[in-house]
């Protein structure tokens, strides 16, 4: 058996009995036990993990760990001090995501030009399209939040992650509806709340 990790948490009580709690220094990893031979792309498993992830977020904010990592405390040890600091600073905060489709996507890089998937993804990010600056300005002003970070996702979309108070989520959703009314020509999706995904990842 292996434990597919979902996130890192401050307290064991933030995890159990929704998921398994694996001690990692002063923190706890949440996860789900699966057979060693269980394909990680199995649809039911993905949905199960997604549901548990959402339930865990209702309990408390956690640092999200990319799907596919099997629990190995030694591998996460270098991150623990930073995660603890993040969790203590942002326990009452969640992320909201505004994904905006570009009006005129740039040409997509050809996969055959890249030796690795990671290189291809980097090229996709580098070729990301721009969005209407008026929409961008309005989105920042209306969604607000404690901190915002724009990330080029690919050649067809740009994304803003906003760190907001849990109590502020309803207001942010209302802000999304006002953007929809005022910018009907801009395709976008406001989603959340999410755990600490972008703001916990140094590579973003």
């Amino acid at each position, binding site marked *: 058996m292996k434990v597919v990790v979902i996130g890192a948490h401050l307290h064991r009580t933030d995890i159990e009995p929704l998921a398994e709690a694996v001690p990692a220094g002063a923190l706890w990893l949440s996860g789900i036990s699966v057979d060693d031979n269980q394909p990680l792309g199995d649809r039911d498993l993905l949905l199960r993990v997604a549901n548990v992830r959402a339930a865990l977020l209702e309990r408390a904010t956690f640092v999200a760990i990319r799907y596919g990592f099997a629990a190995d405390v030694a591998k996460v040890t270098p991150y623990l001090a930073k995660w603890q600091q993040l969790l203590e600073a942002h326990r009452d905060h969640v992320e909201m995501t505004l*994904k905006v489709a570009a009006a005129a996507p740039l040409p997509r890089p050809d996969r055959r030009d890249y030796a690795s998937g990671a290189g291809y993804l980097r090229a996709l990010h580098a070729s990301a399209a721009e969005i209407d600056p008026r929409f961008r300005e309005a989105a920042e002003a209306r969604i607000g939040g404690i901190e915002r970070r724009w990330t080029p996702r690919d050649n067809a979309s740009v994304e803003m992650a906003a760190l907001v108070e849990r109590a502020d989520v309803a207001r942010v959703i209302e802000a999304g509806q006002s953007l929809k009314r005022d910018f009907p020509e801009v395709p976008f999706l406001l989603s959340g709340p999410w755990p600490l995904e972008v703001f916990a*990842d140094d590579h973003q």
Partner: protein
Amino acid sequence: MNDQSAEDLSLLETLDHLLDRGVVISGEAVISIGDVDLLYLGLNIVLANVDAIVRTARRT
């Protein structure tokens, strides 16, 4: 947006966050599903997600 398309978009968005967000542990190999690694699965979800956003925006 009808209920079905909203549900599909929500599912795509949930899977996108699961597969393409959060901390990547250094040195962790990308785990494969058959010949398709999770990186590509995540990428396909991202692209499908953007297409779905555009389609649903056109319908509303």
